[in-house]
Protein backbone atom coordinates (compact mmCIF):
# COMPACT_ATOMS: atom_id res chain seq x y z
CA UNK A 1 0.00 0.00 0.00
CA UNK A 2 2.25 2.67 -1.23
CA UNK A 3 1.45 6.19 -0.16
CA UNK A 4 3.66 7.78 -2.75
CA UNK A 5 4.47 6.96 -6.32
CA UNK A 6 6.70 8.94 -8.61
CA UNK A 7 5.16 10.91 -11.42
CA UNK A 8 4.80 9.16 -14.75
CA UNK A 9 7.32 10.42 -17.19
CA UNK A 10 5.93 12.64 -19.92
CA UNK A 11 7.99 12.78 -23.03
CA UNK A 12 7.46 15.11 -25.94
CA UNK A 13 5.26 13.11 -28.29
CA UNK A 14 4.99 13.15 -32.03
CA UNK A 15 2.07 15.09 -33.36
CA UNK A 16 0.49 11.94 -34.76
CA UNK A 17 0.79 8.62 -32.90
CA UNK A 18 2.08 5.74 -34.96
CA UNK A 19 -0.05 2.69 -35.65
CA UNK A 20 1.68 0.36 -33.14
CA UNK A 21 1.34 3.00 -30.45
CA UNK A 22 -2.33 3.34 -31.13
CA UNK A 23 -2.78 -0.43 -30.90
CA UNK A 24 -1.05 -0.85 -27.55
CA UNK A 25 -2.64 2.29 -26.26
CA UNK A 26 -6.09 0.98 -27.16
CA UNK A 27 -5.48 -2.44 -25.62
CA UNK A 28 -4.00 -0.95 -22.44
CA UNK A 29 -6.78 1.61 -22.31
CA UNK A 30 -9.38 -1.11 -22.58
CA UNK A 31 -7.92 -2.62 -19.39
CA UNK A 32 -8.80 0.67 -17.70
CA UNK A 33 -12.32 0.34 -19.09
CA UNK A 34 -12.50 -3.18 -17.64
CA UNK A 35 -11.39 -1.83 -14.26
CA UNK A 36 -14.04 0.88 -14.30
CA UNK A 37 -16.67 -1.61 -15.42
CA UNK A 38 -15.80 -3.96 -12.52
CA UNK A 39 -16.08 -1.15 -9.98
CA UNK A 40 -19.39 0.11 -11.40
CA UNK A 41 -20.75 -3.43 -11.71
CA UNK A 42 -19.93 -4.21 -8.07
CA UNK A 43 -21.86 -1.17 -6.85
CA UNK A 44 -24.75 -1.76 -9.27
CA UNK A 45 -25.09 -5.47 -8.61
CA UNK A 46 -24.88 -5.28 -4.82
CA UNK A 47 -27.40 -2.43 -4.68
CA UNK A 48 -29.67 -4.40 -7.00
CA UNK A 49 -29.50 -7.46 -4.76
CA UNK A 50 -30.32 -5.25 -1.80
CA UNK A 51 -33.14 -3.47 -3.62
CA UNK A 52 -36.02 -5.44 -2.09
CA UNK A 53 -34.73 -4.89 1.43
CA UNK A 54 -33.97 -1.21 0.85
CA UNK A 55 -37.52 -0.77 -0.47
CA UNK A 56 -39.02 -2.64 2.46
CA UNK A 57 -37.08 -1.18 5.38
CA UNK A 58 -35.51 2.00 4.03
CA UNK A 59 -33.16 3.81 6.39
CA UNK A 60 -35.06 2.33 9.32
CA UNK A 61 -32.90 -0.74 8.64
CA UNK A 62 -30.06 1.09 10.37
CA UNK A 63 -31.96 1.70 13.61
CA UNK A 64 -33.92 -1.55 14.01
CA UNK A 65 -32.38 -4.32 16.08
CA UNK A 66 -34.73 -7.12 15.01
CA UNK A 67 -33.26 -9.81 12.72
CA UNK A 68 -35.92 -12.44 12.35
CA UNK A 69 -36.37 -14.75 9.37
CA UNK A 70 -39.68 -16.07 10.75
CA UNK A 71 -41.41 -12.69 10.90
CA UNK A 72 -39.32 -11.56 7.91
CA UNK A 73 -38.25 -8.41 9.70
CA UNK A 74 -34.67 -7.34 9.44
CA UNK A 75 -32.68 -4.52 10.97
CA UNK A 76 -28.97 -3.94 11.25
CA UNK A 77 -28.60 -2.02 14.50
CA UNK A 78 -27.09 -4.84 16.56
CA UNK A 79 -24.79 -5.77 13.69
CA UNK A 80 -23.69 -2.17 13.21
CA UNK A 81 -23.00 -2.02 16.93
CA UNK A 82 -20.97 -5.25 16.81
CA UNK A 83 -19.05 -4.05 13.77
CA UNK A 84 -18.19 -0.63 15.14
CA UNK A 85 -17.47 -1.85 18.66
CA UNK A 86 -15.12 -4.64 17.54
CA UNK A 87 -13.38 -2.49 14.91
CA UNK A 88 -12.89 0.54 17.15
CA UNK A 89 -11.59 -1.54 20.06
CA UNK A 90 -9.19 -3.30 17.69
CA UNK A 91 -8.05 0.09 16.35
CA UNK A 92 -7.55 1.38 19.88
CA UNK A 93 -5.08 -1.42 20.58
CA UNK A 94 -3.58 -1.72 17.10
CA UNK A 95 -2.85 1.91 16.24
CA UNK A 96 -0.35 2.72 19.04
CA UNK A 97 1.38 -0.63 18.54
CA UNK A 98 1.50 -0.18 14.77
CA UNK A 99 2.83 3.38 14.92
CA UNK A 100 5.46 2.24 17.40
CA UNK A 101 6.46 -0.53 14.98
CA UNK A 102 6.57 1.98 12.11
CA UNK A 103 8.85 4.23 14.18
CA UNK A 104 10.99 1.29 15.20
CA UNK A 105 11.46 0.18 11.61
CA UNK A 106 12.17 3.63 10.22
CA UNK A 107 14.06 5.40 13.00
CA UNK A 108 15.13 3.21 15.85
CA UNK A 109 16.01 -0.32 14.80
CA UNK A 110 19.62 -1.20 14.03
CA UNK A 111 19.87 -1.29 10.25
CA UNK A 112 20.64 -5.01 10.03
CA UNK A 113 17.34 -5.74 11.80
CA UNK A 114 15.11 -3.52 9.67
CA UNK A 115 14.61 -5.76 6.65
CA UNK A 116 13.99 -9.02 8.54
CA UNK A 117 11.65 -7.39 11.06
CA UNK A 118 9.74 -5.56 8.30
CA UNK A 119 9.46 -8.87 6.43
CA UNK A 120 8.03 -10.60 9.51
CA UNK A 121 5.49 -7.83 10.06
CA UNK A 122 4.47 -8.20 6.40
CA UNK A 123 4.13 -11.95 6.84
CA UNK A 124 1.73 -11.35 9.71
CA UNK A 125 -0.51 -9.62 7.15
CA UNK A 126 -0.11 -12.57 4.78
CA UNK A 127 -1.58 -15.14 7.17
CA UNK A 128 -4.95 -16.06 5.62
CA UNK A 129 -7.83 -14.86 7.77
CA UNK A 130 -9.33 -18.35 7.86
CA UNK A 131 -6.15 -19.62 9.53
CA UNK A 132 -6.28 -16.83 12.10
CA UNK A 133 -9.92 -17.76 12.62
CA UNK A 134 -9.01 -21.42 13.12
CA UNK A 135 -6.43 -20.40 15.69
CA UNK A 136 -8.94 -18.03 17.25
CA UNK A 137 -11.69 -20.60 17.56
CA UNK A 138 -9.59 -23.54 18.84
CA UNK A 139 -6.73 -21.91 20.76
CA UNK A 140 -7.28 -18.25 21.52
CA UNK A 141 -10.99 -18.45 22.45
CA UNK A 142 -10.64 -21.31 24.96
CA UNK A 143 -7.48 -19.70 26.41
CA UNK A 144 -9.26 -16.38 26.92
CA UNK A 145 -12.33 -18.08 28.38
CA UNK A 146 -10.36 -20.26 30.79
CA UNK A 147 -7.65 -17.88 31.95
CA UNK A 148 -7.95 -14.26 30.89
CA UNK A 149 -11.68 -13.59 31.15
CA UNK A 150 -12.17 -15.11 34.65
CA UNK A 151 -9.20 -13.06 35.87
CA UNK A 152 -10.52 -9.84 34.34
CA UNK A 153 -14.03 -10.62 35.59
CA UNK A 154 -12.88 -11.28 39.15
CA UNK A 155 -10.71 -8.21 39.41
CA UNK A 156 -12.33 -5.66 37.12
CA UNK A 157 -15.85 -7.04 36.90
CA UNK A 158 -17.33 -3.74 38.10
CA UNK A 159 -16.43 -2.23 34.70
CA UNK A 160 -19.14 -3.09 32.13
CA UNK A 161 -16.39 -4.10 29.69
CA UNK A 162 -15.46 -7.06 31.86
CA UNK A 163 -18.87 -8.10 33.12
CA UNK A 164 -20.74 -11.28 32.31
CA UNK A 165 -19.80 -14.93 31.98
CA UNK A 166 -16.57 -15.87 30.26
CA UNK A 167 -17.15 -17.51 26.89
CA UNK A 168 -14.84 -18.92 24.26
CA UNK A 169 -16.82 -17.19 21.50
CA UNK A 170 -17.34 -13.50 21.77
CA UNK A 171 -16.15 -9.96 21.36
CA UNK A 172 -12.73 -10.38 22.98
CA UNK A 173 -11.29 -13.02 20.61
CA UNK A 174 -12.75 -11.07 17.67
CA UNK A 175 -10.98 -7.92 18.84
CA UNK A 176 -7.70 -9.79 19.26
CA UNK A 177 -7.95 -11.35 15.79
CA UNK A 178 -8.84 -8.00 14.20
CA UNK A 179 -5.96 -6.32 16.02
CA UNK A 180 -3.54 -8.87 14.59
CA UNK A 181 -4.91 -8.08 11.13
CA UNK A 182 -4.76 -4.30 11.38
CA UNK A 183 -1.33 -3.92 13.00
CA UNK A 184 0.73 -4.88 9.93
CA UNK A 185 -1.33 -2.64 7.63
CA UNK A 186 -1.00 0.48 9.77
CA UNK A 187 2.61 -0.39 10.65
CA UNK A 188 3.80 -0.62 7.06
CA UNK A 189 2.08 2.63 6.07
CA UNK A 190 3.49 4.49 9.07
CA UNK A 191 6.95 3.11 8.35
CA UNK A 192 6.75 4.57 4.83
CA UNK A 193 5.45 7.85 6.22
CA UNK A 194 8.23 8.21 8.79
CA UNK A 195 10.84 7.28 6.18
CA UNK A 196 9.47 10.02 3.93
CA UNK A 197 10.16 12.76 6.48
CA UNK A 198 13.16 14.64 5.06
CA UNK A 199 16.28 13.65 6.95
CA UNK A 200 17.50 17.24 7.23
CA UNK A 201 14.43 17.97 9.37
CA UNK A 202 15.18 15.00 11.59
CA UNK A 203 18.87 15.80 11.81
CA UNK A 204 18.13 19.48 12.35
CA UNK A 205 16.07 18.63 15.40
CA UNK A 206 18.78 16.35 16.73
CA UNK A 207 21.41 19.01 16.06
CA UNK A 208 19.37 21.43 18.17
CA UNK A 209 19.81 19.01 21.02
CA UNK A 210 16.52 17.15 20.80
CA UNK A 211 16.57 13.55 21.94
CA UNK A 212 15.33 10.95 19.51
CA UNK A 213 11.95 10.89 21.23
CA UNK A 214 11.68 14.70 21.15
CA UNK A 215 12.58 14.62 17.46
CA UNK A 216 9.91 12.01 16.77
CA UNK A 217 7.30 13.82 18.85
CA UNK A 218 7.95 17.34 17.63
CA UNK A 219 9.14 16.80 14.04
CA UNK A 220 8.32 13.38 12.63
CA UNK A 221 4.80 12.83 13.98
CA UNK A 222 3.47 16.34 13.15
CA UNK A 223 4.92 16.01 9.64
CA UNK A 224 2.99 12.83 8.95
CA UNK A 225 -0.05 13.22 11.19
CA UNK A 226 -2.42 13.44 8.22
CA UNK A 227 -0.92 10.31 6.73
CA UNK A 228 -1.35 8.54 10.04
CA UNK A 229 -5.03 9.49 10.00
CA UNK A 230 -5.26 7.97 6.52
CA UNK A 231 -3.52 4.82 7.75
CA UNK A 232 -5.95 4.53 10.64
CA UNK A 233 -8.87 4.88 8.22
CA UNK A 234 -7.52 2.09 6.04
CA UNK A 235 -7.06 -0.08 9.11
CA UNK A 236 -10.62 0.69 10.18
CA UNK A 237 -11.97 -0.21 6.74
CA UNK A 238 -10.05 -3.49 6.88
CA UNK A 239 -11.48 -4.35 10.29
CA UNK A 240 -15.04 -3.45 9.31
CA UNK A 241 -14.87 -5.60 6.19
CA UNK A 242 -13.30 -8.70 7.73
CA UNK A 243 -15.85 -11.49 7.54
CA UNK A 244 -14.34 -14.94 7.86
CA UNK A 245 -12.16 -14.85 10.95
CA UNK A 246 -14.69 -12.74 12.83
CA UNK A 247 -17.57 -15.04 11.96
CA UNK A 248 -15.50 -17.95 13.28
CA UNK A 249 -14.80 -16.44 16.70
CA UNK A 250 -17.45 -13.87 17.57
CA UNK A 251 -20.32 -16.27 18.28
CA UNK A 252 -22.89 -15.04 15.76
CA UNK A 253 -25.33 -13.69 18.33
CA UNK A 254 -27.28 -10.46 18.04
CA UNK A 255 -26.26 -8.35 20.94
CA UNK A 256 -25.70 -4.80 22.01
CA UNK A 257 -23.55 -5.22 25.04
CA UNK A 258 -20.48 -3.42 26.35
CA UNK A 259 -19.21 -6.73 27.67
CA UNK A 260 -16.16 -8.14 25.93
CA UNK A 261 -17.14 -11.64 27.04
CA UNK A 262 -20.55 -11.68 25.38
CA UNK A 263 -21.00 -13.20 21.93
CA UNK A 264 -22.01 -10.68 19.26
CA UNK A 265 -22.00 -10.45 15.47
CA UNK A 266 -20.84 -8.07 12.78
CA UNK A 267 -22.28 -7.12 9.40
CA UNK A 268 -19.55 -8.90 7.43
CA UNK A 269 -19.69 -11.92 9.73
CA UNK A 270 -23.45 -12.22 9.32
CA UNK A 271 -23.19 -12.12 5.52
CA UNK A 272 -20.58 -14.89 5.68
CA UNK A 273 -22.68 -17.09 7.94
CA UNK A 274 -26.16 -16.57 6.50
CA UNK A 275 -26.01 -15.53 2.84
CA UNK A 276 -25.71 -19.03 1.43
CA UNK A 277 -28.50 -20.50 3.54
CA UNK A 278 -30.83 -17.50 3.73
CA UNK A 279 -34.37 -18.72 4.49
CA UNK A 280 -36.25 -16.04 2.58
CA UNK A 281 -35.54 -13.81 -0.38
CA UNK A 282 -35.97 -10.79 1.88
CA UNK A 283 -33.34 -12.15 4.26
CA UNK A 284 -30.86 -12.57 1.41
CA UNK A 285 -31.69 -9.09 0.19
CA UNK A 286 -31.19 -7.71 3.70
CA UNK A 287 -27.77 -9.37 3.82
CA UNK A 288 -27.00 -7.63 0.52
CA UNK A 289 -28.16 -4.40 2.20
CA UNK A 290 -25.45 -5.06 4.81
CA UNK A 291 -23.01 -5.47 1.92
CA UNK A 292 -24.12 -2.07 0.59
CA UNK A 293 -23.37 -0.51 3.99
CA UNK A 294 -19.93 -2.17 4.02
CA UNK A 295 -19.32 -0.95 0.49
CA UNK A 296 -20.23 2.63 1.44
CA UNK A 297 -17.94 2.53 4.51
CA UNK A 298 -15.04 1.13 2.49
CA UNK A 299 -15.53 3.68 -0.31
CA UNK A 300 -15.62 6.61 2.10
CA UNK A 301 -12.61 5.37 4.08
CA UNK A 302 -10.48 4.62 1.02
CA UNK A 303 -11.30 7.75 -0.94
CA UNK A 304 -10.76 10.06 2.02
CA UNK A 305 -7.55 8.26 2.98
CA UNK A 306 -6.27 8.89 -0.54
CA UNK A 307 -7.36 12.51 -0.57
CA UNK A 308 -5.58 13.07 2.72
CA UNK A 309 -2.37 11.38 1.64
CA UNK A 310 -2.47 13.13 -1.74
CA UNK A 311 -2.68 16.48 0.02
CA UNK A 312 0.26 15.64 2.26
CA UNK A 313 2.36 14.53 -0.65
CA UNK A 314 1.72 17.80 -2.42
CA UNK A 315 2.50 19.77 0.73
CA UNK A 316 5.69 17.88 1.38
CA UNK A 317 6.69 18.27 -2.24
CA UNK A 318 6.78 14.54 -2.83
CA UNK A 319 6.09 13.68 -6.42
CA UNK A 320 2.69 12.05 -6.73
Amino acid at each position, binding site marked *: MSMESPQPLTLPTRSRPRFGDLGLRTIAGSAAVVLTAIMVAIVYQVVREAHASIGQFGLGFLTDNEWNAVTNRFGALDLIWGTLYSSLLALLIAVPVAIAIGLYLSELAPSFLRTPVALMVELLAA*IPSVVLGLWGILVLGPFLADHVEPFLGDNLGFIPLFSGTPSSHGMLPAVVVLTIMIVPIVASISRELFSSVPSDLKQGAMALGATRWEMVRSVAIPQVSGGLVAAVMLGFARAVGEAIAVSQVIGGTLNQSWSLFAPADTMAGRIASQYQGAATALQRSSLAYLAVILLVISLIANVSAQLISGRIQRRMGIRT
Partner: protein
Amino acid sequence: MELLASIAALCAIAMLLLVIGTVAQRGAPALSVGFFTNVDAAFLQTGGGIENAIVGTLIMTGIATAMAVPVGVLLAIFSTEFAPPPVAAAVRMTLNVLAGVPTIVIGVFVYGLLVVGRGQSSFAAAVALAIIMLPLIARSTEEVLLLVPSTLREGGMALGATRARTVLTVILPTAFGGVITATIVAVARAAGETAPIIFTSSIFANAVVTDPSQPMASLPYTIFTKSELPSASDQQQAWAAALVLISFVLLGSIIGRLLSIRTRRQIEQTR
Protein backbone atom coordinates in the same frame (compact mmCIF):
# COMPACT_ATOMS: atom_id res chain seq x y z
CA MET B 1 10.45 5.13 23.99
CA GLU B 2 12.90 3.03 22.04
CA LEU B 3 12.16 0.23 24.47
CA LEU B 4 8.40 0.54 23.91
CA ALA B 5 8.83 0.55 20.14
CA SER B 6 11.05 -2.51 20.30
CA ILE B 7 8.48 -4.26 22.47
CA ALA B 8 5.76 -3.44 19.93
CA ALA B 9 7.84 -4.94 17.13
CA LEU B 10 8.57 -7.97 19.30
CA CYS B 11 4.84 -8.40 19.96
CA ALA B 12 4.11 -8.54 16.23
CA ILE B 13 6.88 -11.07 15.65
CA ALA B 14 5.71 -13.10 18.65
CA MET B 15 2.13 -13.22 17.27
CA LEU B 16 3.44 -14.40 13.89
CA LEU B 17 5.58 -17.12 15.44
CA LEU B 18 2.81 -18.11 17.85
CA VAL B 19 0.26 -18.63 15.07
CA ILE B 20 2.72 -20.41 12.75
CA GLY B 21 4.04 -22.52 15.62
CA THR B 22 0.57 -23.58 16.74
CA VAL B 23 -0.47 -24.47 13.20
CA ALA B 24 2.73 -26.47 12.65
CA GLN B 25 2.51 -28.25 15.99
CA ARG B 26 -1.14 -29.24 15.63
CA GLY B 27 -1.11 -29.86 11.90
CA ALA B 28 2.10 -31.82 11.45
CA PRO B 29 0.90 -35.05 13.15
CA ALA B 30 -1.93 -35.37 10.59
CA LEU B 31 0.33 -34.99 7.58
CA SER B 32 0.91 -38.22 5.66
CA VAL B 33 1.06 -39.32 2.06
CA GLY B 34 -2.59 -40.33 2.28
CA PHE B 35 -3.52 -36.83 3.43
CA PHE B 36 -2.37 -35.51 0.06
CA THR B 37 -3.66 -38.34 -2.11
CA ASN B 38 -7.12 -39.02 -0.67
CA VAL B 39 -10.29 -36.99 -0.78
CA ASP B 40 -12.19 -36.13 2.39
CA ALA B 41 -13.33 -39.16 4.42
CA ALA B 42 -16.98 -40.21 4.25
CA PHE B 43 -19.29 -39.24 7.09
CA LEU B 44 -18.33 -40.84 10.42
CA GLN B 45 -15.15 -42.29 8.95
CA THR B 46 -11.68 -41.18 9.83
CA GLY B 47 -8.64 -40.79 7.64
CA GLY B 48 -9.17 -39.10 4.35
CA GLY B 49 -7.31 -36.15 2.99
CA ILE B 50 -7.36 -32.92 1.07
CA GLU B 51 -6.40 -33.96 -2.45
CA ASN B 52 -9.55 -32.46 -3.93
CA ALA B 53 -9.06 -29.26 -1.92
CA ILE B 54 -5.48 -28.85 -3.14
CA VAL B 55 -6.48 -29.52 -6.76
CA GLY B 56 -9.42 -27.11 -6.42
CA THR B 57 -7.29 -24.33 -4.95
CA LEU B 58 -4.67 -24.78 -7.68
CA ILE B 59 -7.24 -24.70 -10.49
CA MET B 60 -9.24 -21.77 -9.14
CA THR B 61 -6.15 -19.71 -8.36
CA GLY B 62 -4.73 -20.65 -11.76
CA ILE B 63 -7.81 -19.44 -13.66
CA ALA B 64 -7.89 -16.28 -11.55
CA THR B 65 -4.22 -15.61 -12.31
CA ALA B 66 -4.78 -16.12 -16.04
CA MET B 67 -7.51 -13.47 -15.90
CA ALA B 68 -5.92 -10.98 -13.53
CA VAL B 69 -2.31 -10.85 -14.75
CA PRO B 70 -2.90 -9.62 -18.35
CA VAL B 71 -5.46 -7.02 -17.28
CA GLY B 72 -3.30 -5.91 -14.34
CA VAL B 73 -0.14 -5.54 -16.40
CA LEU B 74 -1.99 -3.69 -19.18
CA LEU B 75 -3.48 -1.37 -16.58
CA ALA B 76 -0.02 -0.61 -15.23
CA ILE B 77 1.28 0.03 -18.76
CA PHE B 78 -1.68 2.29 -19.46
CA SER B 79 -1.31 4.41 -16.34
CA THR B 80 2.48 4.73 -16.53
CA GLU B 81 3.07 5.04 -20.28
CA PHE B 82 -0.03 6.30 -22.02
CA ALA B 83 -2.58 7.91 -19.72
CA PRO B 84 -2.49 11.67 -19.19
CA PRO B 85 -1.72 12.42 -15.50
CA PRO B 86 -5.34 13.05 -14.39
CA VAL B 87 -6.50 9.79 -16.00
CA ALA B 88 -3.58 7.91 -14.46
CA ALA B 89 -4.52 9.37 -11.07
CA ALA B 90 -8.11 8.24 -11.57
CA VAL B 91 -6.97 4.72 -12.49
CA ARG B 92 -4.77 4.63 -9.38
CA MET B 93 -7.64 5.86 -7.23
CA THR B 94 -10.00 3.23 -8.64
CA LEU B 95 -7.42 0.51 -8.04
CA ASN B 96 -7.04 1.56 -4.41
CA VAL B 97 -10.80 1.68 -3.95
CA LEU B 98 -11.20 -1.75 -5.53
CA ALA B 99 -8.43 -3.10 -3.30
CA GLY B 100 -10.38 -1.75 -0.33
CA VAL B 101 -13.70 -3.38 -1.17
CA PRO B 102 -14.28 -6.07 1.48
CA THR B 103 -13.76 -9.53 -0.02
CA ILE B 104 -17.12 -10.68 1.34
CA VAL B 105 -18.79 -7.96 -0.75
CA ILE B 106 -16.98 -9.25 -3.82
CA GLY B 107 -18.40 -12.66 -2.93
CA VAL B 108 -21.92 -11.21 -2.82
CA PHE B 109 -21.28 -9.43 -6.14
CA VAL B 110 -20.09 -12.53 -7.98
CA TYR B 111 -22.90 -14.57 -6.45
CA GLY B 112 -25.46 -12.23 -8.00
CA LEU B 113 -23.53 -11.98 -11.26
CA LEU B 114 -22.61 -15.61 -11.97
CA VAL B 115 -24.21 -17.96 -9.45
CA VAL B 116 -27.88 -16.92 -9.39
CA GLY B 117 -29.72 -18.97 -12.01
CA ARG B 118 -26.61 -20.91 -13.02
CA GLY B 119 -25.48 -22.52 -9.80
CA GLN B 120 -22.07 -22.51 -8.23
CA SER B 121 -18.93 -23.06 -10.23
CA SER B 122 -15.22 -22.83 -9.61
CA PHE B 123 -15.14 -20.40 -12.53
CA ALA B 124 -17.32 -18.01 -10.53
CA ALA B 125 -14.97 -18.39 -7.56
CA ALA B 126 -12.01 -17.72 -9.87
CA VAL B 127 -13.65 -14.51 -11.13
CA ALA B 128 -14.04 -13.34 -7.53
CA LEU B 129 -10.41 -14.18 -6.78
CA ALA B 130 -9.29 -12.41 -9.98
CA ILE B 131 -11.06 -9.22 -8.85
CA ILE B 132 -9.10 -9.40 -5.59
CA MET B 133 -5.80 -10.06 -7.40
CA LEU B 134 -6.23 -7.35 -10.04
CA PRO B 135 -5.39 -4.27 -7.92
CA LEU B 136 -2.49 -6.07 -6.23
CA ILE B 137 -0.91 -6.96 -9.57
CA ALA B 138 -1.63 -3.63 -11.23
CA ARG B 139 -0.30 -1.53 -8.35
CA SER B 140 2.95 -3.40 -7.83
CA THR B 141 3.60 -3.70 -11.57
CA GLU B 142 3.06 0.03 -11.83
CA GLU B 143 5.59 0.67 -9.06
CA VAL B 144 8.20 -1.39 -10.89
CA LEU B 145 7.46 0.24 -14.26
CA LEU B 146 8.02 3.61 -12.65
CA LEU B 147 11.40 2.43 -11.37
CA VAL B 148 12.58 1.74 -14.92
CA PRO B 149 14.96 4.61 -15.60
CA SER B 150 13.77 7.17 -18.13
CA THR B 151 17.09 6.87 -19.98
CA LEU B 152 15.92 3.47 -21.24
CA ARG B 153 12.69 4.98 -22.52
CA GLU B 154 14.50 7.85 -24.14
CA GLY B 155 17.09 5.49 -25.61
CA GLY B 156 14.36 3.42 -27.23
CA MET B 157 12.69 6.51 -28.65
CA ALA B 158 16.00 7.94 -29.84
CA LEU B 159 16.60 4.77 -31.82
CA GLY B 160 13.38 5.54 -33.64
CA ALA B 161 11.31 2.87 -31.92
CA THR B 162 7.64 3.59 -31.36
CA ARG B 163 6.44 4.01 -27.84
CA ALA B 164 4.66 0.64 -28.06
CA ARG B 165 7.85 -1.07 -29.22
CA THR B 166 9.85 0.59 -26.45
CA VAL B 167 7.33 -0.60 -23.88
CA LEU B 168 7.23 -4.15 -25.21
CA THR B 169 10.92 -4.70 -25.93
CA VAL B 170 12.69 -2.49 -23.40
CA ILE B 171 10.53 -1.55 -20.47
CA LEU B 172 8.53 -4.73 -19.87
CA PRO B 173 11.57 -7.03 -20.07
CA THR B 174 13.38 -4.76 -17.59
CA ALA B 175 10.41 -4.89 -15.27
CA PHE B 176 9.68 -8.59 -15.87
CA GLY B 177 10.96 -9.64 -12.47
CA GLY B 178 8.60 -7.14 -10.90
CA VAL B 179 5.63 -8.59 -12.75
CA ILE B 180 6.55 -12.09 -11.57
CA THR B 181 6.88 -10.82 -8.01
CA ALA B 182 3.52 -9.09 -8.15
CA THR B 183 1.95 -12.29 -9.49
CA ILE B 184 3.47 -14.49 -6.78
CA VAL B 185 2.30 -12.18 -4.01
CA ALA B 186 -1.20 -11.93 -5.50
CA VAL B 187 -1.44 -15.71 -5.96
CA ALA B 188 -0.39 -16.25 -2.35
CA ARG B 189 -3.07 -13.83 -1.23
CA ALA B 190 -5.81 -15.31 -3.45
CA ALA B 191 -5.03 -18.90 -2.46
CA GLY B 192 -5.86 -18.07 1.16
CA GLU B 193 -9.07 -16.14 0.54
CA THR B 194 -12.24 -17.70 1.91
CA ALA B 195 -14.88 -14.99 1.67
CA PRO B 196 -15.12 -14.94 -2.16
CA ILE B 197 -15.45 -18.74 -2.23
CA ILE B 198 -18.12 -19.48 0.36
CA PHE B 199 -21.02 -18.48 -1.93
CA THR B 200 -19.45 -19.44 -5.24
CA SER B 201 -17.81 -22.82 -4.69
CA SER B 202 -18.96 -24.38 -1.44
CA ILE B 203 -21.32 -27.20 -2.47
CA PHE B 204 -19.07 -29.71 -4.16
CA ALA B 205 -18.76 -33.42 -4.82
CA ASN B 206 -16.34 -35.19 -2.50
CA ALA B 207 -14.05 -36.11 -5.36
CA VAL B 208 -11.29 -34.53 -7.39
CA VAL B 209 -13.08 -32.16 -9.77
CA THR B 210 -11.24 -30.57 -12.68
CA ASP B 211 -14.15 -29.13 -14.66
CA PRO B 212 -14.26 -25.36 -14.01
CA SER B 213 -18.00 -25.27 -14.60
CA GLN B 214 -18.44 -27.33 -11.43
CA PRO B 215 -17.79 -26.13 -7.87
CA MET B 216 -14.62 -27.49 -6.28
CA ALA B 217 -13.29 -28.00 -2.80
CA SER B 218 -10.54 -25.63 -1.71
CA LEU B 219 -8.05 -25.38 1.13
CA PRO B 220 -9.52 -22.25 2.78
CA TYR B 221 -13.06 -23.60 2.62
CA THR B 222 -11.93 -26.94 4.06
CA ILE B 223 -10.30 -25.13 6.99
CA PHE B 224 -13.35 -22.91 7.42
CA THR B 225 -15.87 -25.75 7.69
CA LYS B 226 -13.71 -28.19 9.62
CA SER B 227 -12.72 -25.54 12.18
CA GLU B 228 -16.34 -25.41 13.31
CA LEU B 229 -16.87 -29.18 13.56
CA PRO B 230 -16.71 -30.71 17.03
CA SER B 231 -14.79 -33.90 16.26
CA ALA B 232 -11.09 -33.97 17.11
CA SER B 233 -10.15 -35.68 13.85
CA ASP B 234 -11.89 -33.00 11.79
CA GLN B 235 -10.14 -30.29 13.75
CA GLN B 236 -6.81 -32.00 13.27
CA GLN B 237 -7.48 -32.10 9.53
CA ALA B 238 -8.27 -28.41 9.65
CA TRP B 239 -4.90 -27.77 11.31
CA ALA B 240 -3.10 -29.91 8.76
CA ALA B 241 -4.85 -28.17 5.87
CA ALA B 242 -3.95 -24.85 7.49
CA LEU B 243 -0.32 -25.97 7.69
CA VAL B 244 -0.32 -26.77 3.97
CA LEU B 245 -2.00 -23.47 3.11
CA ILE B 246 0.14 -21.33 5.39
CA SER B 247 3.38 -22.93 4.11
CA PHE B 248 2.33 -22.13 0.56
CA VAL B 249 1.22 -18.59 1.39
CA LEU B 250 4.21 -17.66 3.53
CA LEU B 251 6.67 -19.22 1.08
CA GLY B 252 5.05 -17.23 -1.73
CA SER B 253 5.22 -14.03 0.30
CA ILE B 254 8.87 -14.54 1.26
CA ILE B 255 9.93 -15.44 -2.29
CA GLY B 256 7.94 -12.50 -3.64
CA ARG B 257 9.55 -10.14 -1.17
CA LEU B 258 13.09 -11.35 -1.82
CA LEU B 259 12.55 -11.22 -5.59
CA SER B 260 11.25 -7.69 -5.35
CA ILE B 261 14.35 -6.55 -3.46
CA ARG B 262 16.46 -8.21 -6.18
CA THR B 263 14.46 -6.68 -9.04
CA ARG B 264 14.74 -3.23 -7.55
CA ARG B 265 18.47 -3.64 -7.16
CA GLN B 266 18.84 -4.84 -10.76
CA ILE B 267 16.80 -1.98 -12.14
CA GLU B 268 18.75 0.50 -10.09
CA GLN B 269 21.96 -0.89 -11.57
CA THR B 270 20.76 -0.05 -15.06
CA ARG B 271 20.52 3.58 -14.13
